[in-house]
């Protein structure tokens, strides 16, 4: 049965979280069932208060074979991190 059901990716926002985070995937016949299955599978231990689902086929992913050209050029560009400033003491939570 589940062989025929499409795969969905599940995103959950925790009670204090600002963003939905990817928590896993599941099978469901449609979006309604996907939300309910996500509730039953991924929020059993109060993991969150909001769920997003999207059918996996709608996710466009970067090509794992292009990792070198995609991500490695950023490696030696440490000046892109804002770590060269002196922070005044008044600025907290940085």
């Amino acid at each position: 049965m589940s062989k025929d059901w499409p795969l969905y990716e599940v995103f959950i926002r925790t009670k204090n979280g600002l963003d939905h985070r990817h928590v896993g995937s599941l099978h469901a016949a449609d979006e309604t069932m996907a939300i309910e299955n996500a509730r039953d599978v991924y929020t059993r231990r109060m993991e969150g208060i909001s769920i997003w689902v999207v059918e996996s086929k709608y996710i466009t992913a970067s090509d794992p074979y292009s990792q070198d050209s995609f991500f490695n050029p950023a490696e030696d560009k440490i000046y892109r991190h804002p770590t060269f400033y002196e922070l005044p003491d008044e600025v907290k939570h940085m």
Partner: protein
Amino acid sequence: MGIDKNLISSLFVHADTALIHGQRLGELCGHGPVLEQDIALTNISLDYIGRARLYYDLISKLEGNNKTEDDYAFHRIESEFKNLLLVEYPNKDFAYTVAKQFFIDVFYYHFFLQCVESKNQEIISISQKSLKETAYHKKWSSEWIIRLGDGTDISHQKMQNAVADLWMYVGEMFVPTEFEQAVIKENLMADLLPIKSLWEAEVKDIFSIAGIKQAENNWAQSGGKEGNHTEYMGYILSEMQYIPRTYPNMIW
């Protein structure tokens, strides 16, 4: 105030119904139709067992006998259980599991909706917690009634068969026994008769969306609340009670 035997008996109806239903659903752990529904069924099972625990706890307090939930669940015999016959019915196939769930969800939803107005504070708090759970169960089971009823020819036929076979166990929910009548009169628990028309209307709605016909027989088997059970009950208890009876006081 003496011990309210009527109240205790009435609490046993819902405690035992919750326990036996939870046990039946628990049988499906690892055997659900798909992994996601397997977990859904187990979640519902645990909600019911949790509810049984709350009721047994309250019963123990009222009886003042220091019995534990385990004593009630594992050390009573068949005729002492007062659960509805409906929940004894085997899972058979997923359509039966869904139909059974749907029938008691709609009942309990309206039951708890009224029980939150009880004169007893503890009944109110059990009902408030259970009402939230039941609202979700009802959503789950209604959708499956529709999906299977309005699905393929085979799923429709299976849903229709389940409804037909389980129908005779529905009526028992709405007929108060003598001890329940006394408790209803005291405004301790929901009146059962008015729930019947609410239940019928809601079931009719979902059935019409699902294309499922109501069964035609209106004869209702009863007896569960008085301790007279179907032939399935002994098997449920012998499996459920086996370990605690074989190794008394075992803990893990």
